Structures are given as structure tokens and as C-alpha cells.
């Protein structure tokens, strides 16, 4: 099982996921867009224990990497260091941050398929994108707790989906496998599941 998780993006989502991962006992490496010194203080206060570093270094040292940066920046990802790695894509297209969609996303493709096409030698699984960061923070619960909420997972490799699901379980959520990366579209803004903060049973109905 993975013990070190890299989180690329040290904003609202990245910090929240760092908090959950630290609590679950993982070592966490976290990176923003630039020099680690820019995020060091925030990380030390908001997610004490996580190590601020560069994206390339974080990717190199981890088996599992979570993408928590704006979608429009995906071409800046350290492609080489991500080779062969399991990458959880939690990014969404958000026009207020990313600008017009036709600048970014070829029509018909799910955003995770596009990320997979760019990171062609990494293994992409889409997850942790449909729930708002404050819900992720407030709703994480231990296994079998009543009212536990669920995260939908899409990916082309069953094995990778299994690993990602067990990580999400340890972060505090049930999971629901919904199919390959193309199905990730259902989880995107405008899809039925976007924003969902619900149980696995309810999530299944929404799919």
C-alpha cells in the first residue's frame, strides 16, 4: 500500500486533502506552482507535518500523486517524474479560473481523458473532484460510521481503481466505481454528480 502521497496544488483542495491524508497516517509532500518557500508557512500551519517541495520532487518521491491544481495548468505538470505513477485527477474545468473551455478541452472528451492523453505514461484515475473542499473537510468519517459519504471513482485499470478506492476509504469516504475515464464526464461540472455530498446508495441513484 502507498505510504507517501504527493499533492500538486496547495490551495483550498490541496490543503484539505493534505489534512485528511496526514490524519490517515500518510506521509504527504505538497507543491504549489512555484518555489516551496511560498507555501511553507501556510502548509506548516494548516497541514502540519506535510512537506512543502516542488511538483517534480513531490512526484519523484511518491507512488501516488493527487492533482489539485487548476485544470488549465495541466501542461505544466512534471511529465517525466510522473512516468509510471498512479495519478488521481481531482481537477475540474472552472471557467472563472480556467477561462473559455475551447481553449482547454477538446469537445467530447472527459477532462481526465485529456489529462491521460498528456500524461501518456502515467496511470490516471479520476476521483475526489465532485465534492466541495469544505464538505471533504467536514464529512470525512471512519469506516462503517453511520451516514458516511461516498466519492465516485472512474478509471480504466481495475487495479488502479482498487488502490485509489482504498486510499479514499482511509481518507474517510466510501467509494463508488462508475466505469472508465470516459465516464468521468458524469462527475464534471454540469454532470449529475457534481457537487454531490451523499451516501454511496444515493450516489448510485444519481449515476
Amino acid at each position, binding site marked *: 500500500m502507498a505510504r507517501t502521497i504527493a499533492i500538486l496544488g496547495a490551495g483550498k483542495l490541496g490543503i484539505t486533502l493534505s489534512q485528511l491524508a496526514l490524519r490517515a497516517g500518510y506521509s504527504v509532500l505538497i507543491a504549489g506552482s512555484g518555489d516551496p518557500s511560498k507555501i511553507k508557512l*501556510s502548509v506548516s500551519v494548516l497541514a502540519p507535518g506535510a512537506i512543502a517541495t516542488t511538483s517534480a520532487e513531490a512526484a519523484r518521491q511518491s507512488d501516488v500523486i493527487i492533482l489539485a491544481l487548476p485544470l488549465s495548468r495541466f501542461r505544466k505538470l512534471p511529465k517525466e517524474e510522473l512516468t509510471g505513477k498512479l495519478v488521481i485527477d481531482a481537477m475540474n474545468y472552472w471557467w472563472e479560473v480556467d477561462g473559455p473551455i475551447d481553449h482547454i478541452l477538446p469537445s467530447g472528451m472527459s477532462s481526465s481523458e485529456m489529462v491521460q492523453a498528456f500524461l501518456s505514461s502515467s496511470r490516471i484515475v479520476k476521483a475526489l473532484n465532485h465534492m466541495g473542499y469544505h464538505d471533504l473537510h467536514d464529512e470525512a468519517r471512519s469506516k462503517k460510521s453511520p451516514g458516511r459519504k461516498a466519492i465516485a471513482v472512474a478509471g480504466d485499470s481495475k487495479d488502479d481503481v482498487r488502490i485509489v478506492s482504498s486510499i479514499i476509504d482511509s481518507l474517510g469516504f466510501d467509494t463508488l466505481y462508475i466505469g472508465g475515464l470516459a465516464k468521468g464526464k458524469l462527475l464534471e461540472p454540469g454532470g449529475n454528480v457534481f457537487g454531490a455530498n451523499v451516501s454511496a446508495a444515493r450516489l448510485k441513484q444519481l449515476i
Partner: protein
Amino acid sequence: MTHTGNNYLFGLDSFGDLAKAEDGRLMNYAESIRLVVDEAVLADRLGVDVIALGEHHREEYAISSPETVLSAIASKTKQIKLASGVTVLSSDDPVRVFERFATLDAVSNGRAQVILGRGSFTESFPLFGYDLRDYEALFEEKIELFSKLLKEQPVTWSGTHTQSLDAADVFPKTESGTLETYVGVGGSPQSVVRAAAYNFPLVLAIIGGSPERFAPYIELYRKASAEFGHSAHPVGMHSPGFIADSDEQAVKIAFPLFKQAMDKVGKTRGWQPMSREHFMNEVKNGSMYVGSPETVGKKIANAMKAVDAKRFDMVYGFGPMQASDRRRMIELYATEVIPRVRELLGQS
């Protein structure tokens, strides 16, 4: 510079939502703006500390030019502070923002407050000819220029996204020498650090989820302030709410209106309509301050304690709400909720 010690401040925030007249008709833009002026006069009379008006450029909101409305309020009130909430600095001109608010400060005898922010909507970018892709860089550069203008001395400045200035002096000067300025932030850690770097007091926009989760952000603000060699200012928070005579009545009136307002935004952002369960969860555990004066008073006091906030602004008048319900809410906020919160916080 701003408020100090145990001196709590309570405010009301409006975006100028189009309201409903007593006959059920949707008010037009002009009527909705005049309604806010009347409400601010009432709030002033009842002792509310601050009225803050947001800047929006969307069809459901009447206020795109808060400082113009605030100037009208200034001429009819005595005590109440006149704030923006927020001024979208990225798509504005820092020199003009200073000039407009210094003017407001003059006509109000020193009651102007600028709350700078990035705003949660971005309609202003195309409207004023800015490129959304420069979002970060615009804010970064403009807040720096603005912080220089606040010294009220000639400014020399070389800009990328802004004008360059050669010992430019900007008028009017304020009487006190200080234009009160805050920075409004959401959940972004970098924005908190930035506010500390420029030594601006912070107002946290907490519009969903548990307020407690923001406590570490305040610790971050204090540590960052210390690192930059400033003593941190007291922190404020702003959240949406509605108050009626009973909990049931408050929920009954507020739910459909909050839902309508949220769903309208959700439609463009791609999230699903708000369920009653989600709403009630926000009311119970989250950041919607909806209920009777006692319920809301307790909830505000708990939240202020949890994040150690010295200022609370309630965003009121969500959606097409009856003017009479808005009015009643302001009365209850001023005469029952605020005194109750002060009492719960140990200040009478």
C-alpha cells in the same frame, strides 16, 4: 487603525438583490437600490455598526457601484460605517478606487471602509476589458499599488497590468490620513498570507461548511503577520443569514429564496440544485444563520468564538425577498441578535 480589543463590530451586507414589493411584484433596479438606502438608514438608527455593499454585475443584483449608493447613505446617516463588500480590485483601477473611497470618506465624515477582494464572480473582467487569465497577476499587482496609494504620499510606480506613475499625487487626501482598508478572502491560504504581507485586516467570507475549519486560517494570518513584522489585526467574518420571529418561519421564508439564489449560480457553475437537506445541514452545522433571534444569536456567538472573530457581517436579503421580511430581519438583528451575541461573548 480599525477596531481594537474587545470592541466587537456587527454589520449587514447586501449585494442589492432585486427585492419583492408588498404586492408581490419584483422591484426594478432603481427601487431595489432605494430600498437598500432605506434599510441602511434603519440599520444606522438601530445601532448596527457597518453596512457593506458588494459589487456585482449580474441581472439579479442591483448594485454594481457600491460607493455611489454608500454616498447616498452617508448623507442620511450619522454613525454607521460605509463599506464595500467587496471591491473587485482586479478589474478596477487602484487610483480610482482610492479616489472614490477617499471622497466617500469625506462626505461621510470618515466612515468609509474599503474591503478589497477578488470577488466570487468574474463578470467584471470582460465588462471592463480584462483577461481572466491574468486573474492572479492583476490582483497581486493592484493590491501592491493600492497599498502604496494608502500612504497618501506621491507614488512612483512601474506597472505591467497597471499604469506607471511618476511621483503622482492622488486626491482627495483623507482627513484622518487613513482610509480604512480590509481584505476579504475565501478559503485560499495564499490570500490570507497576502493580507498579512500588506498588513491589512482580514474579513473571511465563510459561505458554507463549519466555521470552525477557518480557525487555522486565522492562526496562519497571525503567524504570517508576525513573520512580516506586523502585529495582526482583529479578524472579521461574513456569512449569509435570515432572521424571523420563529425558527419555523425563518426557514419557511428563507429556504425557497436561498435555493433560488444558489441554484441560479449553480446553473452556470454546473452544480445540482440545493436540496432541503443540504440547506438544513447548513442551518444546523454550517454557515447559514437562519432562525429566530435566539437561534441565530447563539450560532453567531459560537462561530465568532470558534474563529476568534471580532467582527461579524451578515449577508441579508438573499433572492427576491419581500421588503417587509427584510425590514423585520434588520430590526431583529439590531435589537435582539446583536445584544444577545454581545452578551454571549461577555460584552454588554
